[in-house]
């Protein structure tokens, strides 16, 4: 029996109708495509009236297939599928085709756009006739969650979930949780002590009965999908037995090997070869840095094991792989600092008294390498004039186009600390002052009143090539002051570069493991930039904090909480639907060659030794189709993407190239074509 197809062409206001003659598309489809019994255009198909059109036609005209030509299926496929289901038609018998993003928004020629829309409608119509009703499956959601990254965003997400009673695994790469916030002295705009507000959260996480923390660990491998991920975690060898160590710190005290601390102290201070990154570290268990420990490098020492009162030191400890199962994953891996040597004209690495913002943070910190004193690289001279240069590596087409969002405020914070702690004059060299969040502009006003100097202009260079007598021995900041309209040379003793926030070096690699993508700049891409900021295109994987783009602490905390709320919602629902669009193997045809087994990127194909055939695990298959195209015996079918469906789609799209200028299945003579139905005539 022939199918009865309904076609619905959306105007999307003027979004589509402005570039495509939608009425003509609907008229043409009604006349020229075989089996079409209704063809309409309508202002907004996604409105309730638009949906009702479809539902009524299914009931009254007995439609067996529906095509909606409108926007991206990402936005409204669910809407139209639901409409069909409501009217008793299996939702997989509804096909959307995108004539907005794929046609009207990217076209400038109305006639050509209209022709392209016709081809897409024909393709969808031909394909939909071959589609089969499918039923969705369900998987139970494992209530445990994996949080990757123990910065402020990850800590917030962890606590929200753990407090709600759900188990959380927290994986942090460094020996302690805390992230960048642990390095700061004060936080803008309120100037509260960073450690004072952070460490309570850290110890809460450390002691929470629902949290299992893996520090000095990384995610090795992720398989499975939403509801039932399987994760392998690499616990790097600490060489200190976690269960035995009491955190007394005697080993650290006695270790004779001092090492420059390039991570926590930003290269400004030292740590030992056995160390915890900072005094309030969670956990307190130290790690041995084997690249620097003299026992590991030269076979001498073992002082730590001699002094340890609980015999917790274990030089033979090996990396360990731990397997866990979780229902959802929250990624909160934060940011890394721009390498300032990439802008050599600012002199970092060459001129001693040019500092990065993170070096300056450590210098301001009372627990830092200078005990909170602001001094030159010699460790004692107090600077008389300090320049703070904004946008170093940000808002610069040669490096990063984006604004790093936090550095203007951090520069103001630095200005305040300088004025509070020293008698120095402090200059901010800014392009635009970006202080848009709550109480930020007020903080800027405050610094104007406190006497920080503001020079608007991008600094050309920082140099020690003096020209004038009063420049001798100084660093000279050469800048075009765009408010005065003049070039200025300002001699200073110290320069602080507000280096950009950049994506973590391994962001892409981790993204691949998790099946989430990065933007051009390298930040993780959210499902929707406005309406779904913490979800990703992969169900069950969420992002929070600065790994999704530069942001301040309040925004990172908000995202951490938001991601946790999304996960809690999934756990409460208890199950997630899984798309029936998956592959299946015909056991009769399968020769057992096992080619597909290794090709599947989701490890979804298992092998039945007894029968000698491969089998797809429905819950793990994502329907990518890799195996379908690889099977030499043609034994694998991708539901919803069968060969005949795709061939029909191709024939549809090539309708005008096919011999008689009609879609392959279109009636050869106009007489048999169905009646076109004028808009609203039904």
């Amino acid at each position, binding site marked *: 029996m022939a199918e009865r197809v309904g076609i619905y062409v959306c105007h999307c206001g003027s979004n589509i109708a402005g570039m495509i003659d939608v009425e003509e598309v609907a008229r043409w489809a009604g006349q020229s495509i075989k089996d079409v019994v209704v063809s309409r255009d309508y202002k907004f198909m996604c409105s309730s009236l638009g949906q009702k059109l479809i539902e009524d036609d299914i009931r009254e005209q007995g439609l067996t297939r529906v095509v909606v030509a409108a926007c991206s299926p990402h936005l409204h496929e669910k809407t139209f599928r639901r409409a069909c289901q409501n009217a008793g038609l299996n939702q997989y018998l509804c096909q959307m085709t995108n004539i907005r993003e794929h046609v009207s928004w990217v076209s400038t020629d109305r006639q050509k756009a209209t022709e392209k829309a016709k081809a897409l409608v024909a393709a969808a119509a031909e394909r939909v006739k071959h589609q089969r009703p499918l039923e969705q499956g369900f998987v139970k959601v494992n209530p445990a969650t994996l949080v990757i990254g123990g910065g402020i965003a990850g800590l917030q997400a962890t606590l929200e979930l753990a407090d709600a009673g759900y188990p959380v695994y927290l994986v942090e790469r460094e020996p302690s949780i805390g992230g960048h916030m642990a390095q700061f002295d004060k936080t803008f705009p309120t100037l509260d002590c960073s450690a004072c507000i952070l460490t309570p959260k850290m110890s809460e996480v450390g002691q929470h009965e629902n949290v299992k923390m893996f520090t000095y660990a990384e995610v090795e491998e992720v398989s499975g999908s939403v509801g039932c991920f399987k994760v392998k975690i690499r616990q790097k060898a600490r060489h200190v037995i976690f269960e035995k160590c009491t955190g007394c710190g005697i080993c650290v005290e006695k270790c004779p090997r001092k090492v420059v601390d390039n991570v926590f102290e930003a290269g400004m201070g030292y740590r030992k070869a056995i160390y915890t990154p900072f005094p309030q570290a969670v956990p307190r268990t130290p790690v041995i840095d084997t690249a620097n420990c003299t026992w590991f490098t030269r076979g001498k020492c073992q002082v730590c094991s001699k002094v340890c009162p609980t015999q917790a030191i274990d030089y033979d400890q090996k990396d360990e792989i731990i397997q866990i199962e979780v229902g959802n994953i929250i990624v909160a891996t934060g940011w890394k600092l721009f390498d300032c040597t990439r*802008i*050599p*004209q600012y*002199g970092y690495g*060459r001129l001693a008294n040019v500092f990065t913002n993170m070096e300056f943070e450590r210098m301001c910190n009372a627990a830092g390498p200078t005990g909170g004193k602001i001094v030159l690289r010699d460790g004692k001279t107090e600077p008389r004039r300090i320049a703070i240069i904004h946008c170093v590596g940000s808002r610069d087409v040669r490096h990063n186009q984006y604004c790093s969002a936090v550095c203007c405020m951090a520069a103001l914070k630095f200005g305040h600390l300088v004025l509070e702690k020293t008698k120095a004059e402090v200059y901010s060299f800014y392009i635009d002052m970006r202080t848009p969040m709550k109480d930020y502009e007020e903080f800027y006003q405050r610094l104007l009143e406190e006497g920080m100097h503001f020079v608007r202009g991008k600094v050309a*260079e920082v*140099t*020690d*090539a*003096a*020209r004038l007598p009063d420049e001798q021995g100084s660093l000279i900041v050469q800048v075009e002051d765009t408010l005065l309209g003049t070039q200025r040379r300002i001699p200073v003793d110290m320069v602080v570069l507000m280096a950009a926030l950049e994506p973590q070096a391994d962001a892409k690699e981790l993204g691949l493991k998790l099946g989430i993508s990065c933007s051009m700049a390298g930040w993780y891409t959210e499902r929707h930039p406005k309406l779904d900021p913490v979800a990703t295109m992969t169900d069950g994987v969420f992002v929070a904090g600065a790994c999704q783009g530069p942001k301040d602490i309040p925004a990172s905390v908000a995202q951490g909480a938001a991601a946790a709320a999304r996960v809690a919602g999934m756990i409460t629902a208890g199950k997630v639907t899984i798309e029936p669009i998956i592959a299946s193997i015909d056991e009769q045809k399968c020769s057992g060659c096992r080619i597909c087994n290794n090709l599947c990127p989701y490890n979804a194909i298992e092998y039945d030794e007894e029968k000698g055939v491969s089998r797809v695990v429905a819950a793990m298959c994502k329907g990518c189709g890799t195996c379908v195209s690889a099977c030499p015996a043609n034994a694998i079918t991708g539901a919803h993407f069968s060969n005949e469906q795709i061939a029909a789609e191709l024939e549809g799209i090539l309708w005008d190239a096919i011999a008689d200028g009609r879609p392959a299945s279109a009636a050869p003579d106009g007489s048999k074509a169905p009646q076109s139905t004028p808009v609203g005539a039904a």
Partner: protein
Amino acid sequence: MKYAYYPGCSLECNAAAYDMSVREVADLLGIRLQEIDDWNCCGATEYFSQDELTATAVIARNLALVDPQLKQVVAPCAACYLNLKKTDRLMAEHADFNQKVNEALAAGGLHYRPGTVQVRHMLDVICDDIGEAAVRDKVVKPLNGLRVAPYYGCQVVRPYPGDENPEYPMKMDHLLSWLGAEVVDYPVKAHCCGGHMTQISEPQAFELIRRLLQSAQDYDADLIVCMCPMCQLNLDGYQGRVNGYFNTEFKLPIVYFTQIMGIAFGLDPKKLGFGKELVAALPVVRAKVNGLAAQAAQ
């Protein structure tokens, strides 16, 4: 390797030392230079500021005259290099302008299709085509002990920096280190020397020259090497006037990078054009390069 060679006017007069040393060094490194037959002046900075079409046509004539067998032209002078490169780009990027230029060329029976000839600077040819190993291989008198400040100026690194950082180029630094010299990492290596500003406003020009000399001296340079006749003229020829104007006592020899290469390669200083500079370079080179003084005394 064979290249078309465009010496330019300076290399025939004030920068004869550059021409001599380029030819000597090229010879030794197996770079075959075939001078363009009947080449004409590139117009320096002046033509372009008068009339773009005329300037371009005059320069394009040189590109049109390149032996069709050769795909690359080498210009040691920074201004010539930039003008040739700019001409090729302008013609490539603007079809109607290209047509006008070719109409002008046609009057002389010539034609140039943009992109046919690749314009290269001598420094790039030595560093990129010949490379570190081959250069090191030729060093017989390493410049150990000589503190050399590389001076790049503007026109080779801006606006077409290639793979260099236009604010902080490194190629000549690397080359000098291959020769065994101590490379002076001073902050003004790509700052402007003032170009023809000496003809317009001496105070401005002298200040620009002074700060280059000052910074090199502050960083204990024995010598500055440059890659442009204009830079050499300003820093060397005007050094005395600058000293008079500012009451300074600079005495920094300024030579071309190919000259110092020649020394490291053991070539005859006379053939490299030493002695043509006003602040004498050889005595400094002999005094500083370990072992050279003894050799010279023998």
